[in-house]
């Protein structure tokens, strides 16, 4: 086994109840993961990029043994997912659930020391480790206050600190910058980079394209429980071939968007609401040749155009090209 994490055809199906009123409900079968296979190399920051509901958290919950997969196999740090679950838990540091995974009546330090005990650190080691983390993440001012008095961002930082308590070789971080303000998010990303530079492998899930692009050595684009694309950001962008992207902002009706989609040379045209206006992302073969026809078609459909920007391909464009949706659109797994 080469990879630090090896996932072989992993699937997860569960049953949930779809509510139909006060007492009526019907059982629904959800395929949250559909035969996911991938390998994560030691020392890399591996990104799982996808919209909410794509299956990223389910995959992480399976890898951290919180959920039993329905089919397939996986190895984490060389341990088998179902046969050596305890060993996996001991060798992984995980930030999941964000601020909800903390004891709010306890102080930050008390939380860290408690979780150190659950990772079987000796009493002196857990206190020492907690103090080191508090210092490294600049939590000194709040470490002795009960968590209930923390801001949302401070709670997220403490949740991240908790993931470091066992000094594991593999860190799994599920949307770690959620609810953080920009400076705190930047600070957290810097710590993740430092940890990676010191040899830790990181699995980093996010639905923020720019974050995946800057943080991750390789990215898997996940949607509807499947890995749609896998590679470095450059490889994924190059996978669009000669296709280029044009972002158009303004007031653009659904009919106008559909008309653009029908134009020759257009692979995808996806509308999304962004900051109170509509953004149309057009993936096309030759934007220079397309542009006059594009403007003509949109104006013919009463579109009000505010900005037309031919842009460099991003990971979000790769996602759009593969799924026909933006990352802002939640996925509803069927």
């Amino acid at each position: 086994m080469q990879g630090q994490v090896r996932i072989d055809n992993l699937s997860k199906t569960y049953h949930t109840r779809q509510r139909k009123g006060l007492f009526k409900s019907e059982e629904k079968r959800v395929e949250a993961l559909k035969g996911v296979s991938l390998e994560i190399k030691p020392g890399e920051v591996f990104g799982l990029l996808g919209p909410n509901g794509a299956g990223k958290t389910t995959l992480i919950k399976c890898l951290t043994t919180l959920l039993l997969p329905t089919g397939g196999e996986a190895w984490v740090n060389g341990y088998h997912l179902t046969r050596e679950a305890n060993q996996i838990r001991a060798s992984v540091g995980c930030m999941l659930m964000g601020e909800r995974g903390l004891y709010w009546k306890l102080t930050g330090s008390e939380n860290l020391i408690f979780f150190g005990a659950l990772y079987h650190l000796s009493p002196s080691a857990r206190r020492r480790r907690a103090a080191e983390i508090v210092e490294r993440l600049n939590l000194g001012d709040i470490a002795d206050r009960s968590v209930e008095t923390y801001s949302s961002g401070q709670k997220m930082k403490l949740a991240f600190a908790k993931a470091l308590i066992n000094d594991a070789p593999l860190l799994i971080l599920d949307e770690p910058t959620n609810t953080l303000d920009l400076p705190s998010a930047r600070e957290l990303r810097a710590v993740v980079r430092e940890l990676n530079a010191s040899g830790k492998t990181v699995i980093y899930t996010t639905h923020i394209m720019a974050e995946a692009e800057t943080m991750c050595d390789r990215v898997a684009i996940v949607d509807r429980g499947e890995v749609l694309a896998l590679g470095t950001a450059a490889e994924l962008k190059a996978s669009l071939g000669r296709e280029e992207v044009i972002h158009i902002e303004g007031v653009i009706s659904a009919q106008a968007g559909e008309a653009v989609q029908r134009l020759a040379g257009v692979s995808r045209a996806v509308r999304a609401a962004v900051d109170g206006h509509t953004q149309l992302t057009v993936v096309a073969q030759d934007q220079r040749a397309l542009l006059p026809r594009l403007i003509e078609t949109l104006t013919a459909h009463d579109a009000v155009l505010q900005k037309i920007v031919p842009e460099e391909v991003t990971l979000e464009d790769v996602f759009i090209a593969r799924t026909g949706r933006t990352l802002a659109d939640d996925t509803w797994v069927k």
Partner: protein
Amino acid sequence: MTATIRPSFRQKLSAALAETWLRLLNISRYPGQLALEIIIPIVFAAMPMLLGRATAGANAAANFQANTGTSNYVAFLLIGSNTFTIVSSAFWHIAYWLRFEQETGTLESIYLTPTTSMTLAGGVALYSVVRGLTSALLAYILGCLIFRVDPFAGDVLLALLFILIGLIPLYGVAFLFGALVLKVKESNALVGLMQWVVSFLMGIFYPVAVLPPLVRLLALLFPPTWMVNGVRSALLGMGFFFGKWYLDIAVLMAFALSVPLLSFWAFNRVEQGVKRNEGMGEF
């Protein structure tokens, strides 16, 4: 400094004690609750005590002696209500532990660590024993002082032995109940119902001998019934179910060996079932 992959017994014990300490820290932030826990069993015992005095008057003790084998109905009721405090604590603390952690999101956090649910459950049980026993003992002594009976009459050590051995199957039953809470994702109504059933079966206000035969048989299948009768017999000399204290202790020990095994098996099955489906965090 990676976590130990194969923890020793000492490391597991340390994790369980950390869980106990966490619970104690948490409750120390609600001091009023502890004071209430000492008052409740006294009030609970006072109601039937005063009813008895109101209905039987000066003959209350004699009537009670004729029906139960002891004239000390005050101590009888105080023992009943305080043993019930221990039993009730076990159910509340185990059921509420799982439910509360599920609702606040910390259940998934602790399931991410290599500490097993059984070790954690051991830590919670120890916390519950410390809290339940302390409250019950303080309430018993205070109740005896208020109602002017000797709290240390009879064989106190034997009474403690019944309590200590009885705690093992009691927490076994509580974990069985915890498995049910994990399955149906409900604790309050279940514990509320269970409290009435338990108080009825274990005979907190009466000896189980007065129950109808079938109900009595059901009561005798329930370990706390043996615990409370053992304590009363040791302190008030009422008579053990099998005549000799060591035979009743043997029954409690049989419960102590079998009930935890059954409950761990059931808990493990439910836990695996939850992991196979929606996961521990769904509530």
